[in-house]
């Protein structure tokens, strides 16, 4: 009982099927009061479905959902004390911004004066005072998003639910609004469940992230843990852009130290020294996971600053400057490996460069089970 009363949201063994199709297969999650949880995963993995079930918009096939202490499996949405922001914003197109915000209060019979007060407060918080008389059609994407937040905030609910609220915005606005949401959460401190398929959004906003795949949670952990110690290759590949490079390798111990052998572009092999001891029970063939930003131009200076750096030679196949950084595609046996470089030290096309791989941050996976070793 104690553990339940501590958490703002608890989901136990939740299943959902539409006819013969199982969409959610035993979800377990909980959120501490005031916590910001993100649900990420590829399209169709069941994020929206899970959110809709928390909101009460979809029925529960089996399992339980508790908000605070209360089992809400069959409580209608309006009585769950939640607020939700939709991907499409779902602003009522025929109402003004003010009416959009007050609609819920009117439905609940909140006195007019209180409504006005609440609108005033929320409008000030979100800086949308000037828009109150307009209709959604007359607003820009960012303004709509803010109004949708306003409609949710005015409820002062126990739980905030967001379903990809930023995915309809253009890249620039998305970054701005992301920051605003983060600030807002810092200010109002409500428990929040936030669905996105953009892992950067998840990383920057959430204290904990649940990575979903095909209806089940692959890993539910703090953002930094998910990024640096992904539970399996799916999570490792999904989080981070460009994605983590997976390099087939063979475990061995070169010169007494544990190391992995990889194939190089010239057809030979290179032995990379591991920073940690080989985990017990690891198979001989493993997959080495290296994030693009952990590949550097090798220099002695680097070697000094960071310890576990392994050097490999690789030809540069393609260079993509993005302004702040430069991506390069490097050949590695018959694989391509992407590296992320400072524009100052960026490789040039055609060059064969010596890479430094930050082995302290590399991961090893079991290719059969796909899990982290």
């Amino acid at each position: 009982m104690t553990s339940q009363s501590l958490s703002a949201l608890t989901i136990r063994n939740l299943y959902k099927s539409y006819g013969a199709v199982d969409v959610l297969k035993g979800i377990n999650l909980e959120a501490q009061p005031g916590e910001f949880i993100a649900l990420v995963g590829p399209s169709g993995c069941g994020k929206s479905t899970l959110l809709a079930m928390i909101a009460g918009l979809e029925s529960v096939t089996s399992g339980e959902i508790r908000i605070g202490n209360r089992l809400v499996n069959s409580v209608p949405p309006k009585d769950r004390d939640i607020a939700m922001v939709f991907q499409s914003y779902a602003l009522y197109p025929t109402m003004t911004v003010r009416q959009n915000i007050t609609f819920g209060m009117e439905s609940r019979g909140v006195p007019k004066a209180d409504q006005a007060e609440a609108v005033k407060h929320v409008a000030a918080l979100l800086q949308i005072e000037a828009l109150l008389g307009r209709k959604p059609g007359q607003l820009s994407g960012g303004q709509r998003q803010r109004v949708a937040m306003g409609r949710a905030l005015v409820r002062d609910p126990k739980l905030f639910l967001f379903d990809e609220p930023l995915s309809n915005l253009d890249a620039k606005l998305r970054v701005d609004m992301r920051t605003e949401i983060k600030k807002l959460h810092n200010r109002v401190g409500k428990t929040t469940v936030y669905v996105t398929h953009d892992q950067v959004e998840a990383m920057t906003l959430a204290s904990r992230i649940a990575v979903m795949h095909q209806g089940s949670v692959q890993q539910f952990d703090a953002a930094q843990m998910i990024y640096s110690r992904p539970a399996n290759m799916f999570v490792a590949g999904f989080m981070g852009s460009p994605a983590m490079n997976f390099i087939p390798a063979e475990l061995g111990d070169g010169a007494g130290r544990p190391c992995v052998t990889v194939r190089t572009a010239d057809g030979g092999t290179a032995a990379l020294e591991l920073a940690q001891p080989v985990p017990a029970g690891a198979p001989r063939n493993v997959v080495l996971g290296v994030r693009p930003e952990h590949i550097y131009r090798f220099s002695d200076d680097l070697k000094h600053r960071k310890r576990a750096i392994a050097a490999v030679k690789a030809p540069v196949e393609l260079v993509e400057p993005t302004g702040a950084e430069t991506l390069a595609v490097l050949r590695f046996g018959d694989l391509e490996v992407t590296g992320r470089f400072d524009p100052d030290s960026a490789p040039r096309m055609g060059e064969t460069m010596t890479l430094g791989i930050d082995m302290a941050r590399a991961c090893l996976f079991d290719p059969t089970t796909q899990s982290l070793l």
Partner: protein
Amino acid sequence: MSIHDLSVPIAVPARSWRDRLGSIVPILVLAPSLAASFVYVFVFTGWTLYLSLSDSTLLPSYGFAGLDNYVSLWSNRRWNIAYTNLFLFSGFYIVGSMAVGLLLAILIDQRVRGEAVWRTIFLYPLAVSFIVTGTVWSWLYNPVDGIQALVRGLGWSDFSFALTSDRNHAIYAVIITGVWQSSGFAMALFLAGLRSVDPDLVKAAQIDGASVVRTYRKVILPTIAPIFLAVAVIQIQFAIKTFDLVAALTRGGPGISTTFPAIYVYDLMFQRGEIGEGAAAAVMMLAALAVVLVPYSLWVVWRRRAEAGNG
């Protein structure tokens, strides 16, 4: 914390009667319409089906007569003509109004000026009842007073447009009038379809070097294929129900050359006092509809499934 320790888990709240009511409101709301439609579609049809097997004449009666009415119906020349007419008319009428409607829609889609005016001109016949349409066109077809006389008066003495007086061609008078009246509707639907085609497709075809005709034939029209089907189905049900138009235009004549099943049913049931046989004729009309509708419904269901599968 101890308070929480002691707190009993809040039992699954029994759903209040309000919630229960809430969940059946949609069904309750739908119920009257459903009941009405059910009676209208099934009970009425069922009754007609029953009458067609009965010995009803002047008034409905419920003695069982087997298939007598059907036998008598199919041995009747007028019915055979009516049934043939139905297929002949339906075919030409549907193809005609779709062809004209499509042509008009394509013309209007060429960014013409005064689009609203053209559209209104082509659409207005739809507003006019079949009774009025039939009456006015019967004036126009009149060989002495109508268009034929007018054109001959202008010096083209061979001109012939007396369709309603020619037994072999009177059915075409009905077809032309029907097309005149309903092609505007087809136009509106096709126009709606054409407007929904992604303009980029047309641009892509332009860059691909396709001529305008080829663009329509190969790219645009195949894309709006579902509209063709929708138009066809709507026109078919009009065609099968055709009654007022013929009643006002040719009254089934000359002779019995433009008799239609709907007119025949009406005549049998009300003028000739043959309710049983009239019901049999009505059932045959439904059968004709079913020939079209059943495959269409299956197709719609299949398409919906397919869409659900994709989306």
